[in-house]
């Protein structure tokens, strides 16, 4: 399957209503039996006595979109998936808000479970996105993925 390179980036947090909208769009795809959704939410981590208030995301978006496209195509050829939708925030996302949304659908549940964690891990590993953790006292540190 061949797909166009999509822009995964959205400005600011991803609203729950946007997620609902995306789910609703699949009601006409009646070959789908299973959806699996991953959401990344900004945690109020406490580091050295200071609490994270928000994360500010920047990215090399050209490379990120290209690499994400390759991850997407690889998943489509490896798994029996009907759809895949990926969004990531840029700019400031406050604690408790959603910054990352990956949505896969398939006729059956096996492929959605097998593919989702792989796609999420690859995106976190391979996309040049940079998170800056902003503390209550205006100081910051650079987020490190584990």
């Amino acid at each position, binding site marked *: 399957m061949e797909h166009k390179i999509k822009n995964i980036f959205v400005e600011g947090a991803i609203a729950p209503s946007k997620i609902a909208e995306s789910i609703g769009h699949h009601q006409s795809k009646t070959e789908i039996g299973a959806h699996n959704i991953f959401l*990344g939410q900004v945690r109020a981590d406490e580091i050295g006595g200071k609490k994270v208030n928000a994360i500010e*995301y*920047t*990215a*090399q978006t*050209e*490379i*990120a979109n*290209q690499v994400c496209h390759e991850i997407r195509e690889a998943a489509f050829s490896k798994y029996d998936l009907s759809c895949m939708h990926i969004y*990531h925030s840029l700019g400031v996302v406050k604690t408790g808000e959603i*910054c*990352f949304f990956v949505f896969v659908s398939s006729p059956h549940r096996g492929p959605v479970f097998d593919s989702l964690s792989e796609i*999420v891990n690859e*995106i*976190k*590993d*391979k*996309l*040049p*996105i*940079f*998170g*800056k953790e902003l503390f209550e006292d205006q100081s910051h540190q*650079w*987020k*490190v*993925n584990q």
Partner: protein
Amino acid sequence: MEIRLRYFGQLQEATGKSEEVLKEAFDTIGSLRNFLIQRYPQLKNRNFKIAQDNKIDMDSSPLNGSLIDLLPPFSGG
């Protein structure tokens, strides 16, 4: 040929710059890396990838791009 250099994330803080133009010529990505570490000692112990013309490349690759991006560790998601 000029190359346009862009610094991302914490590398902007380390170098104090978000971008600059270099007129020097470099045979490989690795030789650019060494040049930059000499110019900005704060980069010395940093782990960063280098992309040319929107493709992440190895230090052994010839440098022939005009847009060079310096990318610190990724932390999306």
